[in-house]
């Protein structure tokens, strides 16, 4: 479960001064549901999710992830989270198996627990064939699967996806979308960001519209339709963004 309260992030830029990337954002994500963060590029989605993954520290506000406070216990939060984005690359010189095992070990798992677990994940994702191939030699789709295996290796209750399908072809994107649904089916708390309306529409139980660092609306798709009186998600999105102006 993720509970975000008045979370803010200010970056200092030499030329432009203080930049408010995320501005007092609050929302809640429940287990067994997919929470979608919808926004254009630069809206603050990545910064928000990076804070939840404790890669960045919030300037103000607070959040708890699976019961742990972001600022007070970042390492405990990271142990409960699987984080996947197009920016999280793989080590080219490690094999698929070695890579997943490395991250499993970093999560404190012993090899006795890890090895059967990795075998299980690899079988599930159909990765046995390239198990011992170096990551640098894998295709984009295969790499994507290795990344999924990496996020799954410690069986986290919370999954964070930052634009996971960005730049992927249809088939690779399908793998990811299927995987996200799978996480929900297994009762995990899932939060994911995208600027692709159709993807959000298809996947999300709850969604939030973020623009210029501010959360403009939050609710189920049905609730948002009702509030705006529009059916199409794109129209809903534009409605909120223009209303703000």
């Amino acid at each position, binding site marked *: 479960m993720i509970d975000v309260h008045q979370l803010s992030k200010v970056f*200092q830029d030499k030329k432009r001064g203080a930049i408010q990337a995320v501005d007092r954002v609050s929302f809640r994500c429940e287990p067994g549901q997919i929470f979608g963060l919808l926004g254009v590029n630069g809206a603050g989605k990545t910064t928000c999710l990076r804070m939840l*993954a404790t*890669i*960045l*520290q919030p300037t103000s506000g607070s959040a708890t992830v699976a019961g742990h406070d972001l600022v007070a216990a970042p*390492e*405990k939060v*990271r*142990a409960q*989270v699987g*984080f996947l*984005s197009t*920016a*999280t*690359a*793989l*080590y*080219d*010189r*490690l094999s698929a198996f*070695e890579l997943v095992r*490395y*991250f499993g*070990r*970093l*999560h*404190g798992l012993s090899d006795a627990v890890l090895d059967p677990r990795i075998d299980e994940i690899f079988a599930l994702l159909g990765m046995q064939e390239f198990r011992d191939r170096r990551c640098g030699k894998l295709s984009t789709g295969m790499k994507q699967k290795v990344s999924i295996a*990496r996020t799954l290796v410690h069986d986290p209750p919370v999954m964070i996806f930052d634009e996971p399908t960005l730049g992927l072809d249809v088939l690779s994107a399908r793998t990811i979308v299927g995987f996200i649904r799978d996480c929900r089916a297994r009762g995990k708390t899932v939060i994911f960001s995208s600027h692709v309306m159709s993807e959000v529409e298809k996947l999300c139980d709850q969604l939030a519209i973020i623009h210029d660092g501010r959360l403009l609306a939050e609710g189920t798709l049905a609730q948002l339709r009702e509030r705006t009186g529009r059916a199409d998600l794109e129209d809903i999105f534009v409605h909120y963004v223009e209303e703000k102006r």
Partner: protein
Amino acid sequence: MNLRQLGIVYRKELIDLLRDRRTILSMFVVPVVVMPLLMAGLGFVGFKVARQAMQETPRVMVLGGEDSPQTLAALHALKNCVFVPPSPDYAAQISSKSVRAAVEIPAGFEVALATGAAGTVRIYEYQGEIKSEAAAGVLQKFFREWRADTVQQRLAQHNLPDDFITPFAIEETNVAPPEKVSGNLVGAIIPYLIIMMCLAGSIYSAVDLTAGEKERGTMETLLCSPVARVNLVLGKCLMVLTVSLVAVLLSLCSTGLSFVVLASMATSFGAARELSLTINPVSLLLVFGLMVPVTLFFASLMLAVGLFSRSVKEANSYLQPLMIFMFIPAVSATLPGLELDLWLALVPVLNISLISKEILSGTYHWGYIALIFSTTCLYAGVALRVAVMLFQRESVLFRT
């Protein structure tokens, strides 16, 4: 600090780096192959040139001396010179190497010699040109002997003893142990070589583990793991330290070997003053021990720079001037006359170079050794602290 996590990070970085051909190149190939080849090659060429110069029979020109037949006859009897007819453009001929040296005998040399002073015999040579200098040396030796003979004759004529002109003798005797002599020769170069190897060996891996990770996007993946940032830096630092120490150890061994080869070359060449190139293994071990904190200092420094940089390219452009900056103290130690004092003992890198020079020449100033070891540890600690601090700052990790 968590030793288990540190070990996991270290092991992974080791595998990762060992699979990279460029690490192998900087860690093994350069110190093991390139350095000795360079030294042996230089030595070989040097000795060969010297030998050739000695073996060549130089062409020499005699200017004047028509009225001194005895001198001319004696000169022409010299076996290790070929005489060419005199020509007014002797200087040009020496410059163009068609003649190696020329000697000018003043007019009326022998007549003047019989009665008193005979003026100046002038030898022309091209200084800095080893073959010309050798030829001039032959001529000079001839005229020195000629002068000595004349002095002997005059002493005999006047019934004077030999010690009339040499009332006492002067002799220089070396009291330094053979190690000290070779130490000054070798000791100045070895620390410089080690520092160079240490830098060259670690620069690539340090950049690869920091800026390289940022560039390839694996840094963010790594930061998602629950490992404390301190352990990530320490694991990486330990890895760079390993790479550097292996490079240093290998270059020490290979340098030692090349010195042995060089020494045997020198002996086979029959150098008059035999180069004694003995190094005490205990000294070498002590120097290596002192190199450990220096290496840690370099590793931390380079990690810090690598972490700060956005890309490998940027890191390299920062590290290259830094390397040159580090060479200055390392090279300064090879200057003769620069001696260790309390202030110099505090200057990083320079202090290690100077004390290594002393140690390799068989002198152990334990006070200085302890002082330098501890100050270097302190510097290394500060550099490591900076690297850890940088790794905890998101403005550094996500610098755009």
